[in-house]
């Protein structure tokens, strides 16, 4: 059974078709990447999946439940988590409170008390290695630390599907490798499906995803294994344009 089924989803902003008749499935525990150049519609697709705005057409089925019209907070309760490209921790709250908020209101939120959420937060603080910053306001952290807090906050929600928006944008190669192995570890220990959004198809994608969806001008270009996608001429064309015609002088 698919975890999430996206069926013929379309989103328009005025005359612009940002997401054009997209259909794909995500299975439990899968590592997938949504790839595409700037403006391909990746962020809109993410926003549609977690309910930031509704789709104009099509349906979305999460674990056999039609969530097409559900607002974002309800989808979070069902188990759809999300991190943002530019981390958005709650600046005045401490690192611990930030992560605890994920636990309190996420998929397991209804049964989790404030104290239990704080314990849960401590667990994830150790996981991301920010113990010494536990009681500091999250607004004062470095961008990479904020990113980690945001991931921990999303994990504390106990999602079944985690959408990660450009988790590695602007990082150096060493940090990228660390982040990739960290995300893999999360998938293995938490058993959640992770969909990463990546603008450039590169080493990160190869490490992060077993399967790749490439979007181009709002539509689905390819949906195949990462190895296939990396050498697919259609994908290369999207990024680099047409190969020059052979000319004979």
């Amino acid at each position, binding site marked *: 059974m698919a975890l999430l089924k996206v069926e013929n989803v379309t989103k328009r902003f005025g005359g612009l078709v940002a997401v054009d008749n997209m259909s794909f499935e995500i299975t439990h525990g899968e590592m997938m990447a949504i790839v595409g150049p700037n403006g391909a519609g990746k962020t809109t697709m993410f926003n549609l999946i*977690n309910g930031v705005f509704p789709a104009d057409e099509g349906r979305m089925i999460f674990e056999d439940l039609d969530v097409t019209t559900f607002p974002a*907070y309800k989808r979070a309760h069902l188990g759809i988590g999300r991190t943002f490209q530019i981390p958005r921790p*709650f600046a005045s709250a401490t690192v611990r409170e930030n992560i605890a*908020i*994920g636990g309190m209101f*996420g998929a397991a939120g209804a049964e989790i008390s404030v104290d239990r959420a704080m314990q849960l937060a401590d667990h994830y603080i150790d996981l991301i290695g920010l113990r010494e910053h536990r009681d500091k306001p999250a607004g004062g952290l470095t961008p990479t630390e904020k990113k980690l807090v945001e991931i921990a906050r999303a994990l504390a*929600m106990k999602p079944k599907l985690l959408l990660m928006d450009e988790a590695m944008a602007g990082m150096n190669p060493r940090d990228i490798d660390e982040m990739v192995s960290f995300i893999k570890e999360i998938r293995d220990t938490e058993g959640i499906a992770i969909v990463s959004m990546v603008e450039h198809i590169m080493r990160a994608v190869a490490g992060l995803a077993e399967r790749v969806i490439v979007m181009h001008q709002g539509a689905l270009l390819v949906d195949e294994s990462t190895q296939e996608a990396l050498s697919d001429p259609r994908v290369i064309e999207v990024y680099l344009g047409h190969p020059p015609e052979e000319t004979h002088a």
Partner: protein
Amino acid sequence: MRPVKEYYPMLPVFLGYGILLGIGIFVPGKWQLISQLAFYCALGQAFNLFMGMTGYVDFGYVAFLGVGTYGMAVSIFYLHDKGLGIGLIAIGLILAAVFSTLLSLAVGAVALRLRGAYFAIATIGVNEGFRFLIEGARIWNGADGIIFSRHLRKAFGREFAMALSTQWADVLVFSVAVLAAALTLIYMRNKVGYALTALREDEDAAKVMGINVTRYKITAFITSAVLAGLLGATAWALKLTYVYPEDVFEIHYTVEAIIIVLLGGAGTLLGPIVGGLIYGISKYYLSIVLPGFQLLIFAPIIIMIIVLFPEGTVGILKKRVFGTPLEKYII
């Protein structure tokens, strides 16, 4: 409910209001000032519960005090001869709470869909609109107001009526202040407080975290409005024994509430006490030294605070005591 030690910050609240009350009782000639200070602290405390915790600025806030004042006035004016005894005051408080709840539901349902400046602008019209409604439709005597000192005397006798409006009204104002502080702390320590912090910092991120932001905003809005209603019923209705629409729907009080919350520190528990005292005391003495110039002096002070100390007095203090044993008490 959280463990008792989570509620230690109530100690400085009790201490603060206890000292104020003590000065009022034991220092001759100071009751007038103390009752004014209690009003400002209570106003800040009630307003802070919404503005401080959600970050939304309600410029129509005084309308909740206004309808609360009418709640008490209507109760005494129409029911004074029913032999209800002290129940008359209880009904007045209940009516004040009901009126302010209804108004906050009506305003909240529309305005809370808006954000930031749009919310502020939308609410500016509320108190003006309500005032014109009462005057124009001649509800509750319209612009003639309700004067109920006679009815109060009939119901309770001259002496007790006097005591009600000179002492008990102020004691009730103190009670409203303490109630508002207690509710603020209870909210802070439970899920609702964390939800409000999250939505104050980033409403979209809060939604994605599973927070039903509308529900929590309305919760804070109604709570804050009911406290304002009770404050109007006690500090204005009971104390003055009359109500005129142009007095109680006066935007000036909303501005004072904003100043108090910012002075003390928005979103802190003790801020409104500190802000209320600073504002009340300086206004009192400024009106003696430079009568009529208070606002002229306050305006630049407010601008300076917002630019230099956006966290307010208690916000700064909180940072200072971080890591010390005082940390548990000052929030």
